[in-house]
């Protein structure tokens, strides 16, 4: 329907977010705030061994401990789970094998947490220790110590290879080939809220789970599978999350445990994980070793890239198959890259499982590529900002790998970041010890395919209005602190011309709301938003059609603005929104509309081409200033400038908050965050433990460490997105780490090719520099990885059609 063009009234204006009041007043109820009558408490016994067979488990003493109601073990859970259909490799409680220190093996349900904790100590478990794998190198070298008996081979979980155009040929013909190794240490999400779950049986005997989860829909499916009860008998409520960042995407063992216990006992059962357990549940950033071989022309254009990655996956599959893809697939989206090959391998190790963390798999290769570009610019004596600006991908273009770029504000982001940071006056011009660095990035606005294969919508919205003038919007989307409820309310309010204050959001409840796939892959604003827009437009149409007669105009000329409905040509003639609804309700009966959204089909048709396509991509450019003390290597970051192409900011103050939050997390990853493990002298101990599973010792920035961040939002509305709005939840994190590394080079002339960048590494590099050696700290070698033969796909400009095709030269004959 061609509604009269009106100025945007809600969208684009900074507002207090809809859930702010409850948050500030402490009224919002997180999962751990929930209390039910007769509620019991669960606690998990976790393995102290990194890799062992459970020989026996005797829980009899725990069962007879006063106050204990139930003890569950692996035997109670015969069916495995896993977020991805191809990696069903985990049990709520390990039945016979433990694979990392922290793997849950038993659960006690007792009258209170203290009693449950006491009873855990009474469970006797006999373990037979197995050899352990601590690193990807060990995983590759010791296929005989198999952590899982599925996967590609040995300890290789996933192994992927793609080649878009003949890369060796292009590299052989390039003016320069740059070869670099990078390492990105793993790190974790560190949400403020530790996971908590409460399971209860409702009056009809159905299971109700309230949980801190980002993906109630996937959790719902997995509960049905593991508990072997019909999904219709289960309701999952995603409580507002106190931060997620990807850490609450996988179903957690504890969620199955409380459900099973509630079913068996008929009483509510709650669990709250300790901070240490959150480090064990993990699913955070994969440690990734990378090798980049990049061909460059004399004038600074990329001709080809060969990217190899090796991911340390930890003990379970988790989102691993997707993570593996993501260490490659988004690489060609930022700059024109005629040919691209990427090989990626994920291995199992005896550590908590890695998974999706903000940026999912893409920050690592982005770090490598953006630091390498800095080296290229230096070698070719080009300004690194200009080098990038000259080769940004064109709007609407395809990449060599058949991703459709859509709108792009990257060029504008670079210009803006250069401008506000005073880049030209600073880069290579500051006194020794001070420097600036630039880097860019892109991210998806939602994954183009669902985690399990299906043809249904990715997001559904239902709208109810009634004569009171209230608007209730139902959607399965999940508020994890990012502000998705606010976006939902704003979009509906804008279309219906009302204030967000009359819109009530009911979200994240599989018993009440239409399916939305969840808060991951930066999909919510665009997918939920498009579905909401459709539902709201349908509602507006019904109302317009019903009141136009009264207003003496045609439906197309009915305007909705500021809580009023009126004739566009005669704004004085009109009525309140509530009156308009009443007239419509009288004419049409009870009013409800629905909307749904399914992403467009991707242009790439080759197998595996489903990972990477997105309805739109966001872009960012970031400049970081650093001060490095040449005597100590101490790093100080006084200021960061970032420009982010958001398409359109629905609520600018919220969008800025997301950008700054992303920068905050990125800076922490750049400078200190690391999820690292410790072995003891092997003669004395087989331990393999998390070094620092606590908030105090796992270092992330405090408020005092945060520099001023100047944010520029670049608004170039994308037609695939609601009101043109792209994502902002993940993208702005991505350019920060390489920009820091590049700034350090500008300041003191040393390359730190691994994260985090700590003062001791800077000092070590400065010492190398003083000795006349290559001033670089970073990985020295890339191990032999048995990558498979790549799938060959011709790029669009070489006559490809998006399908797998024949390699133009005989395979195995390397170009010289």
């Amino acid at each position, binding site marked *: 329907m061609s509604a009269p063009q009106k100025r945007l009234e809600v969208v684009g204006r900074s507002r207090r977010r809809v859930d702010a009041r409850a948050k500030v007043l402490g009224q919002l109820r997180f999962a751990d705030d929930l209390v039910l009558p007769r509620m019991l408490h669960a606690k998990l016994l*976790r393995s*102290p*061994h990194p890799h062992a067979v459970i020989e026996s488990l005797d829980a009899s003493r725990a069962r007879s401990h006063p106050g204990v109601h139930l003890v569950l073990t692996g035997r109670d859970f015969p069916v495995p789970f896993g977020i991805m259909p191809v990696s069903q490799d985990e049990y709520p409680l390990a039945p016979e094998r433990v694979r990392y*220190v922290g793997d849950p093996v038993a659960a006690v349900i007792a009258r209170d*947490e*203290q009693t449950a*904790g006491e009873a855990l100590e009474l469970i006797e478990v006999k373990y037979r220790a197995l050899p352990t794998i601590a690193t990807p190198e060990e995983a590759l070298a010791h296929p005989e110590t198999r952590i899982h008996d599925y996967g590609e081979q040995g300890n290789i979980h996933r192994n992927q290879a793609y080649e878009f155009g003949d890369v060796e040929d292009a590299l052989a013909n390039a003016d320069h080939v740059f070869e670099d190794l990078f390492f990105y240490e793993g790190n974790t999400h560190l949400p403020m809220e530790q996971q908590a779950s409460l399971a209860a049986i409702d009056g009809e005997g159905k299971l109700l789970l309230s949980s801190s989860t980002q993906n109630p829909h996937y959790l719902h499916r997995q509960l049905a599978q593991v508990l072997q009860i019909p999904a219709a008998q289960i309701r999952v409520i995603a409580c507002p999350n106190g931060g997620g960042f990807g850490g609450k995407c996988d179903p957690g063992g504890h969620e199955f445990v409380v459900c099973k216990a509630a079913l068996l006992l008929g009483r509510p059962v709650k669990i*709250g994980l*300790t901070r*240490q357990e959150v480090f064990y549940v993990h699913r955070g950033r994969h440690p990734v070793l990378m090798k980049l071989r990049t061909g460059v022309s004399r004038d600074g254009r990329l001709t080809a890239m060969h990217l190899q990655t090796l991911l340390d996956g930890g003990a379970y599959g988790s989102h691993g198959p997707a993570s593996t893809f993501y260490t490659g697939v988004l690489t060609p989206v930022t700059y024109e890259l005629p040919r691209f090959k990427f090989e990626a391998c994920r291995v199992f190790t005896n550590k908590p499982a890695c998974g999706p963390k903000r940026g999912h798999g893409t920050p690592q290769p982005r770090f490598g590529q953006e630091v390498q570009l800095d080296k290229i610019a230096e070698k070719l004596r080009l300004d690194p900002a200009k080098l990038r600006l000259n080769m940004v991908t064109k709007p609407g273009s395809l990449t060599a790998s058949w991703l459709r770029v859509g709108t792009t504000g990257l060029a504008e982001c670079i210009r803006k970041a250069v401008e506000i940071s005073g880049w030209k006056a600073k880069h290579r011009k500051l006194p020794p010890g001070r420097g600036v660095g630039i880097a860019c990035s892109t991210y998806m606005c939602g994954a183009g395919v669902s985690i399990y294969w299906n043809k249904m919508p990715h997001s559904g919205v239902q709208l109810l209005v009634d004569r009171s003038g209230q608007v209730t919007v139902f959607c399965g989307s999940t508020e994890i602190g990012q502000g998705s409820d606010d976006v939902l309310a704003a979009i509906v309010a804008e279309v219906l011309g009302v204030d967000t204050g009359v819109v009530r959001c009911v979200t994240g409840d599989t018993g009440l709301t239409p399916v939305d796939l969840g808060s991951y892959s930066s999909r919510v604003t665009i997918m939920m938003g498009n579905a909401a827009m459709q539902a709201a437009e349908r509602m507006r149409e019904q109302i317009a059609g019903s009141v136009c007669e009264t207003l003496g105009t045609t439906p197309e000329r009915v305007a909705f603005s500021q809580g009023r409905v009126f004739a566009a040509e005669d704004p004085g003639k009109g009525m309140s929104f509530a009156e308009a609804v009443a007239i419509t309700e009288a004419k049409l009966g009870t009013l409800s509309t629905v909307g749904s959204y399914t992403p467009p089909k991707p242009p790439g048709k080759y197998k595996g081409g489903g990972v990477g396509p997105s309805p739109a991509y966001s872009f960012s450019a970031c400049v970081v200033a650093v*001060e490095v*003390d040449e*005597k*100590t*290597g*101490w790093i*100080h970051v006084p200021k960061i400038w970032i420009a982010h192409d958001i398409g359109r900011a629905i609520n600018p103050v919220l969008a800025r908050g997301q950008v700054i939050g992303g920068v905050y997390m990125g800076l922490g990853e750049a400078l*200190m965050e690391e999820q690292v493990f410790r072995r*003891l*002298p092997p003669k*004395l*101990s087989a*331990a393999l*433990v*998390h*070094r*620092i*599973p*606590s908030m*105090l*010792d796992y*270092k992330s*920035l*405090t*408020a*005092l*460490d945060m520099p001023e961040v100047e944010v520029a939002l670049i608004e170039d509305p994308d037609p695939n997105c609601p009101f043109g709005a792209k994502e902002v939840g993940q993208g702005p994190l991505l350019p920060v780490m390489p920009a820091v590394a590049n700034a350090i080079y500008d300041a003191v002339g040393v390359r730190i090719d691994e994260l985090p960048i*700590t*003062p*001791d590494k800077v*000092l070590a590099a400065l010492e190398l520099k003083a000795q006349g050696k290559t001033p670089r700290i970073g990985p020295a070698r890339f191990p032999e990885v048995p990558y498979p033969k790549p799938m060959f796909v011709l790029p669009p400009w070489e006559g490809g059609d998006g399908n797998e095709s024949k390699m133009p030269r005989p395979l195995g004959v390397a170009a010289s």
Partner: protein
Amino acid sequence: MMRLPWFDYRAPRSVEEAAKILAWEGNGAMLIAGGTDLLPNMKRRHQMPQTLVSVRQVEALKKIANGSGLRLGAGLTLTELLAVRGLRERYRALAQAAAQVATPQLRNMGTLGGNLCLDTRCTYYNQNYEWRKAIDFCMKKDGEVCWVATASKRCLAVSSTDTAPALIALGARVKLVSAAGEREIALAELYQNDGIDYLKRKPDEILTEVLLPQPDGWRSSYWKLRRRGSFDFPLLGVAAAAKLAADGTVEAARLVLGAVSSHPLVIKSDALAGRKLTDDVIAEIGEAAQSRAKPMDNTDMDLRWRKHVVADFVGYALRELRGDDMSAMRLRIAKQLV
């Protein structure tokens, strides 16, 4: 969440009463002041006292007295300590150390006495029971081996108090009271270089007071190395105090390092006497201090690097004493001016 073990709780109102309870209860009792160190430790099952004797109700421990010098009650919270009039001007190192302990919230609870008696720290030890079980414990608690140095006969856990080095540099003494009597000792004498028996305090003694001499021409400075501007324990503390003649010649000086040993490490600084704080002299003392520091791989950051920067940090402190404007460096290191 992590839960506390069971314990009895006593809340005496006077030092005498507290001392009596301690004497009566014997080794099963422990004092608790702000609890910011002890309670997390109890949750991790480091200490499991049967009885906690709280000194929070003991008004006498909150006393501040000016006379010949300054007497500070051990029960003052660090926030209250920082509010003591003239502290910054007269005993700058103490103010700078106290202001950099933990976070504002913890300083509102944590006390001076608790800070001086703070348990030593180690990344193999400051972990919960289950974690420690996964490494089969260590010598300091429940186990045999020291994982930091498996050949070591003693525990090498780190003295991590910020105020102790500052107070020792300022020449502080402390008063210890028990049912049997009281004694006053130099603060440096309270400590010994053993990660387990790090205090020479007897289990029934209460630290009641800290006594500072008149500043009498002494200046002081405290610098702290930690990863972040807030929250973190020291990886290195440098406390320096000196009495300077009008022309800048050092008449007497004290230099104490924190967090590089199991006790505050007093560095011999006689070499300073009679000399001026020139760059060369500062470098010389810095190197001497650096060679004494023995950081271990049981706290945050790379240990060689931590040793390497000792001379730099000693330099910051001495330059501040000399009167250099160190505020830009302060901001880069501490993220705040203290």
